[in-house]
């Protein structure tokens, strides 16, 4: 009966171990409670960079982190200034944000909503971050956006392409620079109809979460409007690594197009699987079988190697663009890291500059002031032509690139070629479009 009783000394030691046993160099930053959450009091302002460092989207996360660090350098007046020089707003002087030096903390979202929220929460409560940014998965971005809304800090969404981020899950404290599933579909469908004809049968493999669902819905609607028929839509879990059991049934489904609504590691694996099954050499219904990857990135193209040649998709930005902003960014990123940036890097770099600029224009770090400065803000010089942050849903509207896997790449980074720059007017939609309905921004929350 007394087997598990501890003696008093043991128990005192246990108690002591709970508290003191793990004494670690403290990295505690004082939080402040002056009017809004984490109002910066010292000479620095802290930003929280919350990206996936492990999991299916780790590559994107690593590239995002590089871009964030570059943006912080530029904001603090180090380096060549990058896109700060081409940005249409000239408020940023290279002296930090509102004269305070920019410091940052990083965290690992593990591509899981729970872990991402815990990480963001610690940035807000422990490190005193006044803005959280990041995310390479829409599920995570939506979860963190909700948290930031409740905590009263600004959330600058990173790589999130789901319609829901600025649709039914939009929040007053959240802003997205990246494009979305609807825009991809609107840009891609005309090109696909032109290239592959208007009487195609499409089979969708879709990542089973908010991004996959909304992108699939958008692509299906846009291609069906062009006369295509949708044979089936099969949902695959985000954690899937072997897609052969999903690809095999495509062969006998009568479909002649395979749409892969996958991203990152998922897309690399499913595309490789589809090519290995010989889908691209097949003739179905008298037509050549084709594969489409609606959301493309250079990092994925590199992962999938040879298999991406000739495959169509869309992207937010590509380093081969020749406008001043893109050139400045590619040069400064290349100088720092030795290779060109990905679209993920581009969007988070822009988000950081846009946040800093909004603080300057608002004259405060208060999230409500910043949000007001961002709403309806029109700018250019950040690599996407003329862009507007729409006030109704906090979504950026800009041109969309339709790209294709290059047949004869000249280097390991030169994997995509821009087929068409779809003008902004073609991808725009009303804020109350049915695919984006069901949510409300609510009012901005400054915490306190």
């Amino acid at each position: 009966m007394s087997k598990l009783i501890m003696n008093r000394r043991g128990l005192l030691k246990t108690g002591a171990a709970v508290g003191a046993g793990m004494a670690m160099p403290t990295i505690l930053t004082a939080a402040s409670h002056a009017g809004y959450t984490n109002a910066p009091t010292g000479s620095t302002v802290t930003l929280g960079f919350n990206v996936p460092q492990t999991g299916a989207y780790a590559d994107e996360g690593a590239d995002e982190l590089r871009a964030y660090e570059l943006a912080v350098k530029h904001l603090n007046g180090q380096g060549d200034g990058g896109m700060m020089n081409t940005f249409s707003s000239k408020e940023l002087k290279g002296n930090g944000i509102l004269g305070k030096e920019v410091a940052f903390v990083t965290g690992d979202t593990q591509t899981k909503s729970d872990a991402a929220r815990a990480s963001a929460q610690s940035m807000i409560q422990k490190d005193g971050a006044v803005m959280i940014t990041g995310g390479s998965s829409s599920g995570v971005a939506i979860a963190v956006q909700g948290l930031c809304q409740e905590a009263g800090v600004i959330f600058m969404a990173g790589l999130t392409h789901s319609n829901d981020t600025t649709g039914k899950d939009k929040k007053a404290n959240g802003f997205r620079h990246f494009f979305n599933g609807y825009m991809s579909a609107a840009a891609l469908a005309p090109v696909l109809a032109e290239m592959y004809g208007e009487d195609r049968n499409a089979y969708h493999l879709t990542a089973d979460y908010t991004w996959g669902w909304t992108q699939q819905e958008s692509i299906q609607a846009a291609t069906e409007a062009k006369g295509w028929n949708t044979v089936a839509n099969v949902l695959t879990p985000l954690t899937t690594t072997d897609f052969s059991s999903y690809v095999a049934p495509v062969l006998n489904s009568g479909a002649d197009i395979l749409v892969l609504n996958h991203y990152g590691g998922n897309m690399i694996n499913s595309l490789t699987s589809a090519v290995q099954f010989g889908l691209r050499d097949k003739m179905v219904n008298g037509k050549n079988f084709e594969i489409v990857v609606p959301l493309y990135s250079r990092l994925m193209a590199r992962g999938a190697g040879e298999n991406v040649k000739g495959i169509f998709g869309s992207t937010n930005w590509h380093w081969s663009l020749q406008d001043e902003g893109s050139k400045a960014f590619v040069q400064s990123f290349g100088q720092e890291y030795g290779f060109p940036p990905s679209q993920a890097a581009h969007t988070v770099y822009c988000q950081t500059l846009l946040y800093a600029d909004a603080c300057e224009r608002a004259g405060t770090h208060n999230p409500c002031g910043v949000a007001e400065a961002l709403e309806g803000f029109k700018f250019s010089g950040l690599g996407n032509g003329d862009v507007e942050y729409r006030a109704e849903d906090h979504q950026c509207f800009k041109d969309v690139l339709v790209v294709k896997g290059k047949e004869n790449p000249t280097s390991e980074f030169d994997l995509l070629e821009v087929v068409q720059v779809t003008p902004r007017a073609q991808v725009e939609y009303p804020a109350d479009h049915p695919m984006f309905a069901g949510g409300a921004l609510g009012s901005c929350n400054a915490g306190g």
Partner: protein
Amino acid sequence: MNLMKDRLLLIIFACVVLAAPLIFAPTGAAYPDLLQRFAIYGIFAIGFNILFGLTGYLSFGHAAFLGVGSYSAVWMFKLLSMNIVPALLLSIVIAGVFSLLIGYISLRRSGIYFSILTLALAQMCYNLAYSVLTPLTNGETGLQLRLDDPRILDAAGDAGSLPSTNFFGLEMKEVFWNPTIFGYDLQFNWGYYVCALLLILSFWISIRIFRSPFGLILRAVKTNQTRLNYTGINSRPYTLAAFVISGMFAGLAGGLLATMDPLAGAERMQWTVGGEVVLMVVLGGMGTLSGPVLGAVFIKYFENIFSKINDGVLHGWFAIMPEWIENAMVLIVSPFVGKGWHLTLGALFMIVVIFLPGGLVEGAQKIGAKLSGANKRAAKVGIE
């Protein structure tokens, strides 16, 4: 005598728990979110220890009860009220029902077969939550509160923002006292103290179960179930009761996670979470009273603090050294912190299992015995 010791243990435990915001300040872990996680996973591990520590039945399926608890709580927040009491009650009840069901099936077997059955059933729950039951669970995105949820018991609040979880008006996330002590900025919030009181209550229940005749039979199951059966005792009702009790603890923990942050995601039900609680109990000391809490604190500390140490922080640590030593030190240390925190945790776990089979509690007792110069006999008593 036992009673005295137990009371002393409970009092010391309560003091440590209640003073945690102060005690943890030097470790950088004293912010409300992490302290609540410590307490919540402590409850989870205490419950798991009642099954695993006493009966030796190793369940990999407890993540399912944690997840079910979270979903129940969030649904209560959506439909009924932002008050945490109905939410927590429902999470305990629903987790109890689930564990009765899963326990009834799994406990027909013991040993590895039991473990695999629980793992399979929990994985089923995860996949159901992830995709099949999407209308109920919102799939991968996770169940979240919305502005237009009914919340029939609550008065209509500010239309523009979500209401926050509360205990009869005390907002869980509200910091009610924010003093600066010894140069540390301390944050005392209601949410932590709700979790802390429930942790102390759970700890007390755990002591009572350990000391009860019921606990004795559970331990007999672990020692030799066949012999127990031959003496005419049917052990299954006892193991099932232990399973349901630990399932309800897990449900409470899940519900508390939702009160802290009203979001329930399917990943909370994944087998990795079920494995994590096993690690917590083994690392802290299975079958001991305070071990599971210690293990929970240890693992959550690593997950949340160690994973945040990036190269920039490391450069700060070694900044006093000459630059080449600084760079070398950063190069050596960086694989083990930041995104490499799993590596350090894995290594520590191996060291503990190999050298301290009794977990951190045993380690603390050994050190205690050495420090006080006590003889070997005292150390032995401690290990027992």
